[in-house]
């Protein structure tokens, strides 16, 4: 299953691919950067509800988008992170910068 997205008032919710590795990461990154630029996105929410596998390539994708969004005065949040993916994210220390949220509404309320 590949990436789908929804945009509401310059907030974008991206439902990520089933598997995120180095092979998929480049494609995801290019697609996201294009969508962010085209729609002047302010808040980017990564939705992991379809994602069953992620390695450290995914950390690179999130960190890269975080830096980009911050530079433009925006922000990034995560939802529906399963426990296996959470263990990879914890290792990287990314939670100092980007947080998990209960729902899209919760993320938007706190980030906008």
């Amino acid at each position, binding site marked *: 299953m590949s990436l789908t997205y929804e945009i509401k008032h310059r907030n974008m919710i991206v439902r990520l691919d089933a*598997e995120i*590795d*180095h*092979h998929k*990461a480049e494609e995801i*990154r290019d697609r996201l950067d294009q969508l962010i630029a085209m729609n002047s996105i302010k808040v980017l929410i990564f939705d992991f509800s379809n994602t069953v*596998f*992620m*390695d*450290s*390539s995914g*950390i*690179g*994708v999130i*960190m*890269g988008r975080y830096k980009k969004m911050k530079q433009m005065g925006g922000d990034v949040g995560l939802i529906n992170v399963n*426990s*296996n993916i959470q*263990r*990879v994210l914890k*290792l*990287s220390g990314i939670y100092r910068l980007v947080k998990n949220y209960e729902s899209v509404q919760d993320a938007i309320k706190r980030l906008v």
Partner: protein
Amino acid sequence: MKFENEMKIEFDSKSQNEGFARVVVAAFVAQLDPTIEELADIKTSISEAVTNAIIHGYEMYPGKVYIYCKIVDDVIYVEIEDHGKGISNIEEARQPLFTSKPNMERSGMGFTVMEAFMDNVEVESVEGCGTTVMMKKTLLSLRATKEEACNE
């Protein structure tokens, strides 16, 4: 008596094969009836090592990646080998957040992930010849089941 089983695969250093490699190893490990978490640990570690072989070992050049797996009782050994350019400083390469390819948005967490998710990780590398990553993990789920059976 010891239970032993082994397998070998060889494939092109193409990123499409990262998924193939981790699924093959997971299928081989499945005979030990691992927990979902153990299986996720192994798949993630394989993915990291194979990605390293492809993007660092061979960079843009085509080559082969070799995986050797062995099960001895409740322990799984995995070796991931490439005949690429090798690592000049292994200690540095293993540091969290170290990456030789920051422009590719690599997080530099590959070895850190392998070390966290496997019981033991060893790296052998010769510049110009290639790199072998050797990993080992004891499946505690299986050990627990056996001990339970023993106590009954």
